[in-house]
């Protein structure tokens, strides 16, 4: 009964979507509205106006930079919300009736909390690849405005590296990557970098987050680079913090 209902609902949902989708201009055609309006201008003049060879970065950090400020605020707010949800109700100690297999597993966990049990293959591969992943992160972040990549992508890779290392080496050995005094600044790095670049832009051009792309190319590149590095570090720190907070069971 329930299955029939769900199927009917899905079909009802899919039919208008399919009708709408088939009525769109053919996929990949050059005269679709997507390519003829504002996007054409971005492609034509984006490089000199935005100061970034990668037009996606140009759109993200220059034409629609206020959008991106909002986006950075969203991840920061997500971090605050996760911390608020989890800290206000910490994990209760297991009730004694949950004995048996689970109880013994917990006991062994407590015996060796620093060194998690992972397969030697996984441990070796993560240790072997970690420096290369870190190098790739730096490349993706720093080279992001002239090649595919950028702050968010690099931050995601760096956060993933931190999570992999924590899984293999244990929390105690990776926590030093997030030092107690520097961590709050790192978590806010994306917002701070954006505000700093915005103020610099205001001084140079008179507009918040304005870039002097056509007059001063070097300053524009430096501002873009600063924002990318800030987003990368900040994003990675936020992912790492959320992971550590969720791991504390």
């Amino acid at each position, binding site marked *: 009964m*329930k*299955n029939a209902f*769900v199927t009917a*609902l*899905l079909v009802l*949902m*899919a039919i208008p*979507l*399919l009708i709408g*989708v*088939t009525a*769109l201009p*053919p*996929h*990949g*055609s*050059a005269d*679709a509205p*997507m*390519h003829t309006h*504002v*996007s054409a201008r*971005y*492609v034509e003049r*984006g490089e000199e106006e935005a100061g970034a*060879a*990668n*037009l*996606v970065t*140009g*759109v*993200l950090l220059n034409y*629609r930079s206020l*959008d*991106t400020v909002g*986006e950075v605020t*969203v*991840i920061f*707010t*997500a*971090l605050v*919300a*996760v911390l608020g*949800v*989890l800290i206000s*109700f*910490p*994990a*209760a100690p297991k009730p004694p009736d949950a004995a048996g297999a689970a109880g013994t597993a917990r006991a062994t966990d407590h015996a060796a909390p620093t060194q998690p049990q992972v397969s030697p293959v996984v441990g070796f591969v993560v240790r072997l690849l970690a420096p290369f992943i870190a190098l790739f992160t730096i490349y993706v972040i720093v080279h992001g405005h*002239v*090649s*595919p990549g*950028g702050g*968010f992508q690099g931050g*995601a890779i760096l956060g993933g590296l931190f999570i992999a290392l924590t899984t293999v080496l244990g929390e105690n050995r990776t926590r030093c990557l997030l030092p107690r005094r520097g961590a709050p600044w790192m978590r806010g790095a994306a917002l701070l970098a954006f505000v700093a670049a915005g103020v610099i832009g205001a001084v140079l051009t008179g507009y918040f987050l304005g870039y002097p792309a056509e007059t001063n190319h070097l300053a524009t590149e430096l501002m873009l680079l600063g924002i990318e590095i800030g987003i990368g570090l900040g*994003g990675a720190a936020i992912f790492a913090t*959320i992971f550590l*907070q*969720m791991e504390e*069971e």
Partner: protein
Amino acid sequence: MLEAVWTNVDYVASVVLFCIGLYIIIAKNNLIKKLLGLNIMETAVFSFIVALGVLDGGEPPIMGEGATGPYSSPIPQALVLTGIVVAVSTTALALGLIIRIYRQCGTIEADELREME
């Protein structure tokens, strides 16, 4: 009709993926599975928006030496990048809430939670 489906098969694939995600959200009982379904729906929307910006024979919108047009539209890619970050944020928040529900109620099955009220 069938020809229109075939020329826009990229969009149709997004619709199918969207429906798969919706099915998981409705039919599955486990909150983590529901969250995975939500993520599949988000992926469907992102792939649809990116597919809108594709140009036949177009290059990635990266200028510089040796780059010749035509270029794919950069706007959908930038918007989807924003969307992905927001999706990650909602996923993190939802996982945090699920952990909290588990700590407080001891289960993450939707029907058991409904009985508990």
